[in-house]
């Protein structure tokens, strides 16, 4: 049933923090397997949008349907179906890489095999027994990717996934969280050009309001820079 409905369906979505509107009247539809790139300067509401889509923040107005689940009412239906890669790796620093991953694997009903598979995929098999607090930022991000993918999510929410990665890691993770993953993806990026290449649809936010919502082919440089102009 849910495959017949789009992956994302937002109607006049709004969210405030206290008195300040961080998302205003956002309407868009994203089909399964497509990639939405969210662009905008710092504080434009990119991360807030991702948090709303993940069910971590309740929308204040409008409607949001994510993977067929109406937010915030059916938030529970989303649990375990979203892969989240944000600024924080969401890993316990005192536990080892494999302890963290097998903790998440078991929550998803998966075993050691899945952990090994993902460790291999992100190139961290050699560091499985290293405590997370000893990892570099780039390695943390690799483990965070493994953590996010362990439950085979249907929707990937990527908040500047490449911010901490060196080019080698970027290449290694590309098949997992890049276009080739064939997952439905929502990503934010500081690099508009790279985001345009990846996206099927581009959303430009400024002060939480959508200034831009169209396929990347029709977007020219001027309108992109209007997003970032002071």
């Amino acid at each position, binding site marked *: 049933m849910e495959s017949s409905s789009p992956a994302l369906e937002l109607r006049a979505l709004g969210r405030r923090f206290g008195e300040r509107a961080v998302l205003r009247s956002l309407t868009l539809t994203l089909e399964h397997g497509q990639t939405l790139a969210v662009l905008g300067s710092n504080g434009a509401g990119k991360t807030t949008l991702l948090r709303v889509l993940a*069910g971590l923040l309740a929308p204040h107005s409008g409607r949001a349907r994510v993977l067929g689940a109406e937010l915030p009412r059916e938030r529970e239906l989303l649990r375990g179906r979203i892969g989240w890669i944000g600024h924080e790796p969401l890993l316990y620093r005192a536990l080892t890489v494999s302890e963290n991953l097998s903790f998440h694997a078991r929550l*998803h009903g998966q075993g050691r095999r899945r952990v090994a598979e993902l460790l291999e995929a992100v190139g961290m098999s050699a560091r499985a027994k290293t405590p997370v607090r000893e990892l570099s930022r780039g390695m943390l991000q690799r483990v965070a990717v493994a953590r996010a993918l362990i439950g085979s999510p249907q929707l990937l929410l990527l908040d500047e996934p490449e911010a901490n990665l060196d080019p080698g890691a970027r290449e290694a993770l590309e098949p997992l969280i890049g276009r080739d993953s064939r997952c439905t993806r929502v990503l934010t990026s500081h690099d508009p050009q790279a985001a345009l290449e990846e996206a099927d649809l581009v959303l430009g936010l400024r002060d939480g309001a959508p200034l831009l919502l169209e396929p990347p082919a029709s977007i020219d440089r001027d309108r992109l820079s209007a997003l970032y102009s002071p």
Partner: protein
Amino acid sequence: MSTLPENALSAPPRASVHQPASGRPPGAARVALILLGKELRLELRTLESVPGMALFALSAFVIFHFALNRAALQGDLAAGVLWVTILLAALLAINRLFVADAQQGGFEALALAPVPPGAILAAKAAALLIYLLVLELLALPAFALLLLAQPLAAAAFGVLATLLLGDIAIAVIGTLVSALVIRSRARDLLGPLLMLPLLIPVVIGATSALSPLLAPHAPDLSSWLSATGLRWLAVLGLYDLLFGLIAYALFEFLLED
């Protein structure tokens, strides 16, 4: 992990990484066990709670010895000293209970994973209960050795039953309060301020139950039960049950956002 044969990994992993999940998400009780396992593993790794609690309890006994200027305690004084010490030691663990989750993204990770709120409550309360039981395993002999006027062994069952029921109340209320204050400024201060009044009935119940057992001529089990013991165990049990239900009903509201 390392026990896996090499050739299991040699199959192209990337193709299978995004395959639909084969496993079935575990039930709530199983999830609670997984969470409890993680909790205990973290405590074993960091040793942030239990050793501190035990050391605190030992110091408190020494302080009581000097502050009260007594070599040996008995009756309600002994029961009071023991309970105050356990209560204050518990506050140390309660303050730390959710810190790792709040600071290292555990809350978000759990909100994204298929984890029901009740399982988080159960796992945290069970972890706290285990910390308290381990603490008592260490502190009770020390208390008997340092401060108690007569041997504890005669009253062991009554003492253990009282401690267990009291510990459950501390664990349940502690988990609820700890989650309540974790996102506020000054949580280190607010936690104890909220905890202590909520636990005064537990102190009343537990010390009332214990004091005849620690008196010079301790009654045997059946006469203790029929005199006051049973009544106070029932009061503690009901208090556990009531706060367990309240915490279960309210806990999900503390995990949102």
